[in-house]
C-alpha cells in the first residue's frame, strides 16, 4: 500500500480518473494493434532505431502535434473555467496544475519539438547534405526529448502535476509550498529533454558549418538554414544555464540544499534570474526558425527572391546577441531600481528594430511579385499583422514604468500569445503544409487547409485581443476565478469562444491529414510549389541518401537558377555513398533516462542507481563498438534513381 500512497494524485478529480482510463485503453489498443498487424519488427527497424534525419524529423513532428493537442486540451479547460465569473468547473489547485502544464508542454514539448522537427527534416536537404553531422546523436536527442515529454505527461496520473507556473518561481516551487512531486517531475523532465536539445544544438552547428554542398558559402545559404544556425548557437549558449538552474532546483527539493529557499541564505531571485537568462533566449530560439520558414515561403509564393538577404542575416545575428541582454524585463518589478530597469528597458525595445526590419523585408519581398494565396502563404500573411500587434505590445511592455502596470496581467498573456502563436504555431503549420509533400509524397488539401487557417487566425484574434482590455482593467493572470463585480466576464467569454475557434481549426488540420492521406494524388512531381531552394531538387519522397549526386551551388537560389537560368546542379556520375547504420542504443539509453527521471522524482534510489548503470553501460558499449556504417554502391544507386524517376 505504501507504493499506492506515494503514486497517488494529491488532488484527484473525475477528469483525471477519466484520463487514466483513456491512457490505459489507448496503450492497450496500441500494443494490441501492433501485435495484430505484426508491426513490432517494422516499428523497431524503421523508426525506433533509425538514424535518418528525415524520419527523426517526422517523429519530432508527430510528438509535437500530440503535445499540441495535450496543451490544447488544457487551454479549453482553462478558458471554460474562466469563461464566466465564479465558475466551479475546476478548483484552484486543478487550475494551477493545468496552466503550469499548458506552459511547459507548449513551450518545451510542442514548440521546441516542432522547430527541431522542421530543422531536422529540412536543413540537411537545404544545404545539400546526406545527413546531420552526428546521426546517432541526433537519434539520442530525439529520444531524450521524447522521454522527457512522456515523463512530464505521466505526472498528472502518477503523483500529481507541477502547479507553481511554468516559470516555477521559488519559494513557491520549494518543498514547503509545493509538497507534491509535481515540481520534481518538472525539474527532471525539463532536464532530460533539455539535454536532448543541447545535443541537437551542437549537432546542427557542426552540420551547417561543415556539411554544406560545394559552393554554398555561408552567405549563399537559404534563410531557414541561417535561422537554424543562429538558433542552435543560442541553444548552445542558453541551455547550459537551464541545466544548472534545474540541477540546483532539484537539489533544493531532494537534497535539502538552500540555493533558492529563503531560509539559510538562499535567494529566490536567483532562480528568477537563471530561469530568464535561459528563458528569454528561448523565446528567440522559437521565433528565429519561424522567421526562417517565412523567409522561404514568402519568396516562393511571391515568385520573387527574398528582399534584403544581407539585412535579414544581420538582423538575426543582432537579435541573437540582444536576446541575452534583456532577461531582467521579466521582473522589472523585483525592486532593482530605476537605473537597472532603464538599461534593460532600452535593450528590450532595441530588439524591435531588427525585428521590424525583417517585417519590412518580407513586405518588400511581395513588391512587384506575383502573389499566390496557398495555405502556407496564408499563414505567412496572417502572421504579419497579428505578429506586428504582438510585437508592438511587446515594446509597450518593454517600457519599465508602464510595465509596472502590465506585469502579471492578462495584457502580458495577450502579448506573448500574439507573438508566439503567429510566430511559432503559424510558422509550424505553414512549414508543415509547405514541406508535407517532401515528407510524404502528396499534398494536403488546400480547401480544408484554408478553412483551418481562417478558424485558427480568427480564433487567435478573438481569444487574445480581449485580454489586452481585461489586463488594462486589472485582471491578473493565473487567477482561477474572479467575481462578477470586476466586469471581466465578457472578455473572458470572448476568449473562450476564440479558444473554441482555435480548437476547430486544429481539428480541421487533423481531418485534412486524414482526408489527404486517403484521397490526395500521389502524382505531384518533385517540386509541386515551383520552389527555390535545394530540398526541392531531390525526389519526392526523399530517398534515404537525400541526393544521389552532391549538388554544386553557385548562387543563393541554386535550384531556382537551375530551373530558370540553366545552372547545372548535379555534375558527374554516381559514386558510392557511405551511410550510417541504424542503432537501438539511443532508444534504450533514453528509456534508461526515463526510468532514471521517474526514480528521481520519487526518490527511489535503487531505481536511480540501476538506471544510471544502464546509461553508463550504453555509453561504454558505444565507445567499444566498431560500426563503420554501410555503403550504397554506384550500381544500386543508379537502380534506385531510375526507379524513383520512373515512379513519377
Amino acid at each position, binding site marked *: 500500500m505504501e507504493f499506492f500512497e506515494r503514486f497517488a494524485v494529491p488532488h484527484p478529480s473525475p477528469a483525471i480518473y477519466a484520463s487514466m482510463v483513456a491512457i490505459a485503453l489507448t496503450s492497450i489498443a496500441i500494443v494490441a494493434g501492433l501485435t495484430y498487424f505484426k508491426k513490432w519488427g517494422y516499428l523497431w527497424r524503421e523508426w525506433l532505431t533509425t538514424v535518418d534525419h528525415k524520419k527523426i524529423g517526422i517523429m519530432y513532428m508527430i510528438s509535437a502535434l500530440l503535445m499540441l493537442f495535450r496543451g490544447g486540451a488544457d487551454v479549453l479547460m482553462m478558458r471554460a473555467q474562466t469563461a464566466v465569473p465564479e465558475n466551479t468547473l475546476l478548483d484552484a489547485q486543478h487550475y494551477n496544475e493545468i496552466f503550469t502544464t499548458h506552459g511547459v508542454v507548449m513551450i518545451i514539448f510542442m514548440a521546441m519539438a516542432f522547430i527541431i522537427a522542421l530543422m531536422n527534416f529540412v536543413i540537411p536537404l537545404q544545404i545539400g547534405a546526406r545527413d546531420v553531422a552526428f546521426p546517432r546523436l541526433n537519434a539520442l536527442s530525439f529520444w531524450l526529448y521524447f522521454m522527457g515529454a512522456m515523463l512530464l505527461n505521466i505526472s498528472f496520473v502518477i503523483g500529481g502535476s507541477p502547479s*507553481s507556473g511554468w516559470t516555477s518561481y521559488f519559494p513557491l516551487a520549494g518543498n514547503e509550498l509545493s509538497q507534491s512531486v509535481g515540481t520534481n517531475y518538472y525539474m527532471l523532465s525539463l532536464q532530460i529533454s533539455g539535454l536532448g536539445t543541447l545535443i541537437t544544438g551542437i549537432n546542427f552547428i557542426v552540420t551547417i558549418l561543415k556539411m554544406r554542398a560545394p559552393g554554398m558559402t555561408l552567405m549563399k545559404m537559404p534563410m531557414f538554414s541561417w535561422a537554424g544556425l543562429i538558433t542552435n548557437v543560442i541553444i548552445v549558449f542558453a541551455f547550459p544555464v537551464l541545466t544548472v538552474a534545474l540541477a540546483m532546483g532539484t537539489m533544493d527539493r531532494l537534497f535539502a540544499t538552500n540555493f533558492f529557499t529563503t531560509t539559510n541564505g538562499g535567494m*529566490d531571485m536567483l532562480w528568477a534570474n537563471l530561469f530568464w537568462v535561459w528563458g528569454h533566449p528561448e523565446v528567440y530560439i522559437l521565433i528565429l526558425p519561424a522567421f526562417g520558414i517565412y523567409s522561404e515561403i514568402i519568396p516562393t509564393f511571391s515568385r520573387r527572391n527574398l528582399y534584403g538577404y544581407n539585412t535579414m542575416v544581420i538582423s538575426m545575428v543582432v537579435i541573437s546577441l540582444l536576446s541575452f541582454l534583456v532577461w531582467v524585463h521579466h521582473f522589472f518589478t523585483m525592486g532593482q531600481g530605476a537605473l537597472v530597469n532603464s538599461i534593460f528597458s532600452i535593450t528590450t525595445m532595441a530588439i524591435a528594430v531588427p525585428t521590424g526590419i525583417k517585417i519590412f523585408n518580407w513586405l*518588400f519581398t*511581395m513588391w512587384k511579385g506575383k502573389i499566390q494565396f496557398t495555405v502556407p502563404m496564408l499563414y505567412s500573411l496572417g502572421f504579419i499583422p497579428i505578429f506586428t500587434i504582438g510585437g508592438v505590445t511587446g515594446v509597450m511592455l518593454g517600457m519599465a514604468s508602464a510595465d509596472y502596470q502590465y506585469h502579471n496581467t492578462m495584457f502580458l498573456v495577450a502579448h506573448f500569445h500574439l507573438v508566439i502563436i503567429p510566430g511559432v504555431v503559424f510558422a509550424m503549420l505553414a512549414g508543415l503544409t509547405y514541406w508535407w509533400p517532401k515528407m510524404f509524397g502528396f499534398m494536403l488539401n488546400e480547401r480544408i487547409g484554408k478553412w483551418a487557417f481562417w478558424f485558427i487566425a480568427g480564433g487567435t484574434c478573438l481569444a487574445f485581443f480581449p485580454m489586452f482590455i481585461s489586463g488594462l482593467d486589472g485582471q491578473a493572470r493565473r487567477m482561477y476565478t474572479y467575481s462578477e463585480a470586476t466586469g471581466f466576464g465578457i472578455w473572458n467569454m470572448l476568449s473562450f469562444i476564440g479558444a473554441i475557434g482555435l480548437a476547430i481549426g486544429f481539428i480541421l488540420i487533423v481531418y485534412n491529414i486524414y482526408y489527404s492521406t486517403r484521397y490526395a494524388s500521389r502524382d505531384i512531381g518533385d517540386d509541386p510549389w515551383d520552389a527555390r531552394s535545394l530540398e526541392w531538387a531531390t525526389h519526392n519522397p526523399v530517398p534515404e541518401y537525400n541526393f544521389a549526386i552532391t549538388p554544386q551551388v553557385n548562387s543563393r537560389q541554386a535550384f531556382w537558377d537551375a530551373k530558370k537560368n540553366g545552372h547545372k546542379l548535379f555534375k558527374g556520375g554516381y559514386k558510392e555513398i557511405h551511410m550510417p547504420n541504424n542503432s537501438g542504443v539511443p532508444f534504450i539509453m533514453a528509456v534508461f533516462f526515463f526510468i532514471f527521471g521517474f526514480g528521481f522524482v520519487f526518490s527511489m534510489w535503487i531505481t536511480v542507481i540501476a538506471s544510471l548503470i544502464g546509461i553508463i553501460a550504453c555509453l561504454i558499449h558505444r565507445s567499444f563498438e566498431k560500426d563503420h556504417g554501410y555503403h550504397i554502391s554506384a550500381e544500386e544507386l543508379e537502380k534506385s534513381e531510375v526507379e524513383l524517376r520512373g515512379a513519377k
Partner: protein
Amino acid sequence: MKLKWAIIGALITVIALLTGCEPLTVLDPKGPQAQTQADVIWISIAIMAFIVITVFVMLVYLLIKYRGSKQPDSYEPPHIEGNKVVEAIVVGIPVIIVAVLSVISVKSTYEVEAKPEGYGDKEPLVVYASSSDWKWHFSYPEQDIETVNYLYIPTDRPLEFKLYSYGPITSFWIPQLGGQKYAMSDMITTLHLGADAPGEFMGRNANFSGEGFAENTFNVKAMPQEEFDEWVKEVKQTAEPLTEQKFDELLEPGHLGQLTFTGTHLDFMPPPEGHHGGHGADDKKNSHSSHESTSSEHAEHEEEGAEHEAHNE
C-alpha cells in the same frame, strides 16, 4: 482580405473601448504615479498604432496590387537584391522611434521610482505591507496600528510602501494608484504611491502564489488627512492590540476578512533587513524623525538601486 478587416475592426473597437465611457482601471488613474504610467501607456499606444497602421496599409496595398490572379501569366517578377535608401529608412525610423520611447521610458521610470511629485515637501506616510498565504498585513509604524486586508490612506500625501512577504513572492498592486512591485521574503522593496482624490480602490497580489491566489485581494480607501487621523484615533480606542501569538495565527495559510489592531508586528517580528533591503525598520524610523528633504530621499533611492544592481549580478 477578411482577416485584415477583422483585425482593423478589432483594433478600432479596442481603441473605442479604451477611450469609451467606462474607463479601464489602469487608464483611470487616481494618483500622480498612476497618472504618469497612464500617460506613458497612451503615448506608446499612439506611436504603436502608427506602426501597426503603416504595416497594415502596406500589406493590404501589396496584396491587392501584386496578387497573382490579376497579373498576366507571362509576368515574371524581377530579381531585386535590396535598396540602400529603402533599408536606411526601414532601419532609421524604428531607431528614432525606439530612441524616443527610451527617453520616455527612462524618464518615467525614474519618476515612478521616486517620491511622487506635486505634494510639496510633505513627508511620506510609511506603510509596511507584508503578504502571507493569502492575506495582506499593513503596519503603520507612525500611527502604531495594523490592519489586515484593507488599507486606509490619506490623500494629497506621498505614500511609501515597504513590501515583503512571509511566503512566496507576491506583487503588491493598486492599479489606480500606480504600478506593482514584488514582495519577497528576504528583502524589502519600496513602492512610492500617492492618491489625489478620496475614493475606494481595488488592491491585490498580482503574482501567482498558489491555491488562494485569486482571492488574495484587499480594499483601499483614500480619504482627506483629517478623516484619516480620525480613523486612526478610533482604531486606537476600539481595536485589540496585536500580540505575537495572534500574529502567528494570522500567518497560517487561509483567507481572512478585514481585521484591525493596535500596535504593529514590526516590534516583535522585524521585517527582513540587511543589505538586500536597503533600510531596516529602525533605520527608517530614524530617517523619519529627521525630516529628510526630497533630494536626499532621491539620492537614497539611487543608492538602493545601485545596491540591487550589484546584487542581481
